[in-house]
């Protein structure tokens, strides 16, 4: 299967990629499977036992602060860097050894595109597409129009956003099974960002797989089926947005005429406080059913429940010990909490927490 998709013309690649479920075991394999990946640059550890799985047909959003190891991971997947340890399988092959055959089936957009100064944008799109094994002429022109790119200008004259468009068009105009996108819309304006999101939806509708590393939370929230958060070269959390929210706290504000102070003693309730008759607290995802049951007995006249935003989720994992809201001093009092903690020592437990969640997803 690998060889047919690699050597035949582009339309065939699409049909292989779309992969009707009956084609055999290869299609049920994950598109990317990384376990225990390690990479050092001199004395710096870039990846320290990273685990990551991207299933076929999904969009996986890869989130992490600068230096977390996102780009290093993608460059190892491309065979541009050699891993120092761990297992990496990409579309059923070894990214270092089978680089050329695998690259026929994937496309890559870096976050900082450099073009040849004396080639036009159109030439660069064609060259990159052809070197990958073919490009859809019609779709290329359509994408140029969609992204409002003038392909007749020399590479040196493009702005950063326009260079980014060139790489995006080259990637999207090829029929490939997998897109590796490393902060692909850096420098694009909001209109183009919307076009990009539309393109990615088209791609996923065609059954292709996308690994999207990004800083733009809104983009990931909209596009990603699942999200992986990595930090200091390690995976700290994986799951759908709903699952990740489940693992964290919902903020609740309620108005009641009854005395609600008994709620404070319930397991999974944090930061309980009463301001001006308004009761506020945060609830752990798994404690929610018990709390809701107890609310029925109170004379609730108004209720707001705010799910955690992705931003809060991230702050929770990026910021050392940040609880996701401003009430840290009080919040740290109830320290033994089940939610994953970003401290390095707790990495094992956080991995445990995320694993069952991902298995539970019915797909």
């Amino acid at each position: 299967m690998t060889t047919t998709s690699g050597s035949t013309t582009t339309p065939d690649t699409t049909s292989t990629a779309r992969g009707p479920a009956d084609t055999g075991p290869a299609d049920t394999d994950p598109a990317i499977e990384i376990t225990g990946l390690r990479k050092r640059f001199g004395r710096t550890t870039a990846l320290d036992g990273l685990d990551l799985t991207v299933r076929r047909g999904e969009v996986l959003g890869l989130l992490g602060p600068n230096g977390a190891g996102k780009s290093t991971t993608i460059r190892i997947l491309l065979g541009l860097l050699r891993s120092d340890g761990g297992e990496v399988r990409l579309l059923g092959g070894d990214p270092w050894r089978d680089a050329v055959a695998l690259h026929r089936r994937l496309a890559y957009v870096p976050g900082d595109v450099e073009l040849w100064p004396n080639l036009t944008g159109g030439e660069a799109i064609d060259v990159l597409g052809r070197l990958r094994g073919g490009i859809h002429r019609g779709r290329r022109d359509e994408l140029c129009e969609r992204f409002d790119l003038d392909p007749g200008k020399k590479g040196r004259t493009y702005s950063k956003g326009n260079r980014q468009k060139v790489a995006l068009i080259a990637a999207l105009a090829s029929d490939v099974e997998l897109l590796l996108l490393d902060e692909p819309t850096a420098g694009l304006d909001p209109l183009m960002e919307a076009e990009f999101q539309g393109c990615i939806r088209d791609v996923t509708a065609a059954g292709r797989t996308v690994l999207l590393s990004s800083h733009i939370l809104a983009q990931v929230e909209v596009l990603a089926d699942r999200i992986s958060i990595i930090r200091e070269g390690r995976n700290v959390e994986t799951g759908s947005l709903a699952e990740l929210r489940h693992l964290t706290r919902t903020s609740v504000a309620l108005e009641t005429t009854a005395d609600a102070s008994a709620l404070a003693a319930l397991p999974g309730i944090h930061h309980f406080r009463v301001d001006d008759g308004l009761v506020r607290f945060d609830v752990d995802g798994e404690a929610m059913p018990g709390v809701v049951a107890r609310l029925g007995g109170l004379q609730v006249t108004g209720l707001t429940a705010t799910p955690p935003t992705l931003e809060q989720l991230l702050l929770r994992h990026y910021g050392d010990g940040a609880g996701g809201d401003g009430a840290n001093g009080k919040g740290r009092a109830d320290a033994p909490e089940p939610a994953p903690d970003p401290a390095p020592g707790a990495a094992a437990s956080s991995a445990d927490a995320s694993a069952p969640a991902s298995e539970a997803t019915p797909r």
Partner: protein
Amino acid sequence: MSTATAPARRASEASAPLDPPRPLARTGALLRFMLRRDRIHFFGWTLTLTVMLVYFSGVLRAVFPTPEDLQAIVGFTASPVGALLGGPGFGYDDLTLDRFLVSQYGLYLITAAGFMSIVTVMRHTRHEEQAGRAELVRASAVGRFAPLTAALLVAVLMNLFVAVLYGVVLTAQGADASGSFLFGASVAAAGIAFAGLAATTAQLTAFSRGGTGIAGAALGVAFLVRGLGDMSSAQGGDLGWLSWLSPIGWSQQTAPFVLDRWWPLALSLAFAAAFTVVGYVLTARRDLGSGLVAARRGSPAAAAWLASPFALAFRLQHAGLVGWSLALFVSAIAYGSFAQPLVEGFVDAPPELIAIMGAEDDLLTGYLGLMGVMMAFFATIYAIGSVQSLRSEELDGRGEGVLAAAVGRVGWMTSWLVVSALAVAWLQLLSGVGQAIGASASIGDWSLFGDVVLGHVAHVPAVWVVLAVAGLLYGWLPRWLLAVWALFGYSFIVAMFGPILDLPDLAYDVSPFEHVGEYPGAELSGVAMLVLTGIAVVVAAAGVVGFRRRDLVSD
């Protein structure tokens, strides 16, 4: 009262003139910043130039301990070819070591200083603009002319530093102080002249490579023009005035230790001043980041043939290759056309001199053979430059884009090297044809045509060896790629000055250029060509193996 004064004050504030425009604002701060950034660049260049002087001087003192020893080779150095490769021979009737040093080797130090200045000015002006950093600098309270002025000052300081070091070194070695410092000043004056020229060429195109290329070409023309002038003077021709059209020539005309005249350096400074003014005028008129030549549009789609790493490598080397082809072809014709005056001027040449030229029976073939190697060194510069471009492709991230497509490491690097190797062969062929045209036309005898072309093409395998060594370094130790210039410099010194320096056989054997033979002046060794080609292939393959194993590097 108060209501009346408030608007008045506001009005006076609004109409109060801002500070006067100060186009040189913060030049001093920029200068200090550039020097701070340039610690390695500054001392690397100036000390290397000084080490070259010390080296030449040391070797000469070892090889020619007495003036009588020197007298034995004055026949060569005073010959037209000696003049072409060295300069006007002042004081050869009473040769001293210092006179010999500055008149035979000064040329290369002067040229190197010119190159140092071009690189330095470009590095702080157009290169910064191209990288976008100049925008940050100019957005602060920095005058329009401050970056260019500070860059020129850096170059001037470097040259003055060299001048002082040269004066001190030569004086310390026992040379006459006034001549020593004059020689130092001559080198510096050429450096300053080309710094001024670079101030203009930096404005012409939007890319530092373009500006460096134009100024470098001008340096080459200056080298060639004064060579032809000196050659003509050496044989009593009437083209000696050509030497006075070249900034390199002016520095040589100071004749240190002989005439000790300073006034030719006034020409250098006037040259520098004139081009600096042009540079300022152009800077004042153009937008930041733009060149004088507007960027042209190109084809919105790639040509059908542009579909393989090999085609891409050719497409990327193509523009540079066109310029090189033109420059080498013209130079070759110019060098070749001196064949006839050479023969005429040398009817009475002593046989020992002809032997030094490497010719077995006549001077003409010896000269044409030597020119074959000379042109091969130019082609080698292209070859090394092409591997440096390959490294830029990798560092700038464009290689990453290609290697993320279905192109393997081996295919990418091999394609590039093969294109470079073919380009080298093409350049040598072109030089040979140019040299043959020039020589045959000037002699009026076309029977040598084929031999001259063959004599040039025969050196291609030697150039390939240097190309392969560059590839080896790129594959295994990319940070040390520049070390290949050591092989180039060594081979060049052996080829051009070996006969004078009386080197042992082993010293010749190390250079790839000493095995094939300088045809038609000497026998051609087909075996050597095959062996060199074989070595090149093996070394290049080893480089590719190294590249396969390592991580891709990016900035």
